[in-house]
């Protein structure tokens, strides 16, 4: 009857969103008077999961699962949920989690609530609050099936330490050839660069930067902050930056702690996509830019003058706070 949480990892290390999901699972388990079981696929050190409240860890170690495969992973998590007789299953909102979630929901015959931002308002009936209309509103939805699947929004619940001792158990789900009917042929991934999905800080540039040749400024600022780089839709449409950097309603969502927008006017579609970020800084030479209304901090000024100064001051700050 425990709450099951799927904990994602990369290169043998649990991701922050996995620890956030465990923190949340612990909150749900406390409401239901039960405990948290984590399932980890070729994952990291299970004591780390114990720090956030997982009292049991089902560890799957399988070379066939070295690369993410939605169907096979969904099958493994389904079997873990069945073994634990879990009535609530928690996953993150990563691209991989959203890929496997609908498969998992059908296999478990579970009601699925994606983009959930808080602990259930009640557990009978089971009501959760989710982001809808691309962060322009919330919906409170009742999950009516016996098993519930919850996709937790990034950065919404946060990390909450709650140390328990985690008992580790190895778990070998039975997988069939049909689980691998979509095969990974090759992966082309930038290494050593912070991705928008994982970033705590995102630095984003718009048309105000005048051309792709000026992106050194964005990259340097991102470098100082350990941030990911992103861009507005027109910038990606004009081919100044790759589509993968486009953030907004039809691009990637951003839910970072800090979002710095440089030379972006703040069209409603852009604001919707980045609105889940906690703190927004806007630098724009047009005092009338709509983005200022959505910002926490604003500077009206020429990006080519303001940003180099900001880089310099941040370098000083980092040197003094190292």
């Amino acid at each position, binding site marked *: 009857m425990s709450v099951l949480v799927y904990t994602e990892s990369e290169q043998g290390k649990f991701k922050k969103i996995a620890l956030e999901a465990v923190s949340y699972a612990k909150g749900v388990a406390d409401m239901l008077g039960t405990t948290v079981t984590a399932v980890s696929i070729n994952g990291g050190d299970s004591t780390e999961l114990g720090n956030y409240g997982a009292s049991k860890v089902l560890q799957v170690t399988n070379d066939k699962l070295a690369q993410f495969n939605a169907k096979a992973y969904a099958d493994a998590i389904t079997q873990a949920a069945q073994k634990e007789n879990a009535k609530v299953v928690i996953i993150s909102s990563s691209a991989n989690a959203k890929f496997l979630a609908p498969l998992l929901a059908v296999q478990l015959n579970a009601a*699925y609530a994606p983009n959930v931002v808080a602990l259930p308002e009640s557990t009978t009936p089971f009501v959760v609050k989710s982001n809808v209309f691309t962060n322009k509103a919330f919906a409170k939805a009742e999950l009516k099936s016996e098993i519930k699947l919850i996709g937790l929004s990034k950065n919404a619940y946060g990390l909450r330490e709650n140390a328990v001792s985690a008992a580790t158990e190895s778990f070998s789900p039975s997988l069939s050839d049909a689980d691998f009917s979509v095969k990974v*042929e090759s992966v082309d*991934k930038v290494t050593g660069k912070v991705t928008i999905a994982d970033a705590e800080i995102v630095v984003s540039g718009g048309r105000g930067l005048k051309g792709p040749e000026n992106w050194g400024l964005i990259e340097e600022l991102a470098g100082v902050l350990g941030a990911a780089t992103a861009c507005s839709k027109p910038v990606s449409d004009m081919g100044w930056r790759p589509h993968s950097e486009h953030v907004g309603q039809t691009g990637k969502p951003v839910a970072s702690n800090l979002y710095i927008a440089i030379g972006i006017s703040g069209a409603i579609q852009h604001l919707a996509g980045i609105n889940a970020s906690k703190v927004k800084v806007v630098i724009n030479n047009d005092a009338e830019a709509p983005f200022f209304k959505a910002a926490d901090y604003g500077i009206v000024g020429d990006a080519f003058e303001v940003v180099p100064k900001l880089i310099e001051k941040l370098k000083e700050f980092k040197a003094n706070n190292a």
Partner: protein
Amino acid sequence: MKILVCISHVPDTTSKINFKNSDTQFDTNGVQFVINPNDEFGLTRAMWFKEKQGAAVHVINVGGPETEPTLRKALAIGADEAIRINTAPVDGFFVAKQLAKVVAEGGYDLVIAGRESIDYNGGMVPGMLAALTGANFVNNCISLEVDGNNAKAVREIDGGRETLSTTLPLVIGGQKGLVEESDLRIPNMRGIMMARQKPLKVVEPDGATPATQINAFEKPAPKGAVKMIDPENVEELVNLLHNEAKVI
């Protein structure tokens, strides 16, 4: 090849979102509806398959009669036939169940849906449909080629892309990249005239039970005022981000 493109009828991206009946219903008053952007990239890719590989392209929507202009637009862009399942799209599972019946009966080889609709952002219909019909599934699809029974798809992943191989029947959750923004088609007069003659079949729903039910909506709390900083004093911003916002 027989292709079904799932079309969500959604508020235009610039719409102001409001609710009515004590915040229990989306207020469509004054809202312009469009083809869901992620679906439109898929529809355009389907047109490519039609023109280059001779595929038949059908479009489908689950919704009331008010969604027909959106289906007609898809026909004007070039789809051959439209199907409307005559019921409110209560939740993702319910919609996937309705679509699964049509897919099974229609013998479609490829189903192209958007990775998510921009209204409820559920992102669950394509995957659930694949699971319900036993088809292969690729989400966040940014490139798709089909050769006979084999398909090659590229999926966007965090920080890069992944090339996948699989077989039909296949469901994809598509997005921008599947075609470029500049490839999107605006229906011309001829297309609009022809669309009037094309079949739009109305099918009654299957008796599936939704798994979820939205009881209420809520708008985000209004934001505090922006704090403006003198461009000659950016150090102030660094201090505020560190001491006040505590994000650096």
